[in-house]
């Protein structure tokens, strides 16, 4: 096999190294990934590169994916659970072009899944790697803006400030108000930002069979959760961690116990709640096509 993703001679597009990144960059990222796996939840600094997409569009996840991907991998990319939204389509196309890897939308078929802000509903297996796109990797950043200080706090496992923040939520709102990017403690040591996944997905990270890798491009950090690692959402004895609950099932496939997105149908308050995981939803619809499309409208 040719080592570059060679392009047909007739279209004069540039020839990239396999998976776009040069080899020295991949080695640097790979060394960071090995350290990240050895120190679960610790943010390893890395020399993030400029990518042919703006910060905020998954440059960290793309660099991690490019560094782990091989020619035999099958790649799935999701954006808020969906395979068919802009970010997912663009990144899938990027790797189809630069690495010529097989892609899929079926969760079980993928060996590498890059995700923005969701964990698939389908349970992940030991042969899979989940790569998260991370905007702000530092869970303490909004509480303490100075990197020198937050680094010291992680070094000393000094997380009192985070518990004060959660306590203030309870004092102000009566409950812990964070609904996404809900902080977790990894392997009983590092407090970690799970990226802006809904807290609904937090329990899926604990004792997961798959390897979870996190890449923050603008902030230049990589971190990881190895398989079968304890991931505990922070809480208090009298205010235990709880995930979101939905009173209605998915309007398209009827699934319960899944994370639902609200879809606005008109300008009169009409709306429906459907699975955010499009692959899961499509494969759970009744086969005779008579799924009750239980569009429900808010009382007006």
């Amino acid at each position, binding site marked *: 096999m040719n080592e570059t993703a060679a392009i047909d001679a007739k279209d004069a597009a540039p020839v990239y190294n396999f998976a776009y990144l040069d080899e020295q960059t991949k080695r640097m990222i790979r060394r960071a990934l090995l350290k990240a796996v050895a120190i679960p939840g610790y943010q390893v600094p890395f020399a993030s590169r400029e990518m042919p997409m703006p910060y905020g569009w998954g440059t960290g996840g793309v660099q991690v994916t490019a560094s782990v991907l091989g020619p035999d991998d099958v790649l799935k990319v999701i954006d808020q659970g969906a395979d068919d939204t802009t970010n997912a389509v663009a990144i899938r196309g990027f790797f189809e072009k630069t690495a010529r890897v097989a892609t899929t939308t079926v969760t079980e078929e993928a060996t590498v899944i890059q995700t923005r802000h969701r964990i698939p509903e389908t349970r992940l297996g030991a042969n899979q790697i989940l790569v998260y796109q991370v905007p702000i990797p530092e869970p303490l950043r909004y509480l303490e803006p100075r990197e020198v200080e937050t680094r010291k706090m992680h070094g000393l496992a000094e997380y009192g400030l985070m518990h004060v923040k959660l306590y203030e939520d309870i004092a102000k709102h009566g409950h812990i108000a964070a609904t996404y990017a809900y902080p977790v403690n990894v*392997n009983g040591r590092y407090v970690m930002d799970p990226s802006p996944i809904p807290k609904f997905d937090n329990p899926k990270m604990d004792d997961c069979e798959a390897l979870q890798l996190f890449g923050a491009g603008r902030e230049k950090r990589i971190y990881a959760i190895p398989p079968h690692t304890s991931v505990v959402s922070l809480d208090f004895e009298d205010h235990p961690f709880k995930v979101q609950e939905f009173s209605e099932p998915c309007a398209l496939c009827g699934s319960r116990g899944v994370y639902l997105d609200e879809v606005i149908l008109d300008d009169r308050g009409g709306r429906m709640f459907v699975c955010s995981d499009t692959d899961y939803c499509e494969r759970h619809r009744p086969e005779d096509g008579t799924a009750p499309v239980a569009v429900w409208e808010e009382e007006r």
Partner: protein
Amino acid sequence: MTGATQADTYSGGFRQPVFDAQGVFRVALDALARPGRIMPLAARTKPPRPMPPLLADILSALADQDTSVFLCPALLAKAPSAAGWVRFQTGAANVKNPAEADFVVASHPENLPPLSQLSPGTPDYPDRSATVLVAVPGFDGGLPVTLSGPGIKDKIAFSPDGMSRGLWQQLVANHALYPRGIDVIFVAGEAVVGLPRSTRIEIGEV
């Protein structure tokens, strides 16, 4: 340098640098993510004999001009051209002081420098630590230990040949430094086993 050692130095690297490096890295990643599990890895390089090829494979995949490598004196005594091979094939600097090395390489556990000499990183930057690549005669028949921790469901037994009780005690002390500490990749024949600093080690059977 004689012609023969020059040939030794300049040949035997990855034949497909992009895919060979990726393949070796993925197995190393899997090995550190699932400590104690024997991960098959076919050798891709031909370093100067008797340097174990898998040590050369992992160096070729991960070391470059940004890293430093310490090759244990016992290995260099038997394979003097190994230093030049690593330097040419990876661009990494050979260092004489193991405390300065990113990668510490030994052809047998007995030849490792005391692990307390190696860099364990700092409390603020525990990633600035050494990675040990060590060949063992085999993955069974040695002193049994029981591993647990991240990457391991419950517990796993591990008994690499050639590991003394004293060395295991050094690795127990290494885990006590967590999150600082060194990470170890064992190689034997055509397989590797990872032992990151996060793994708890009990000397003795399950």
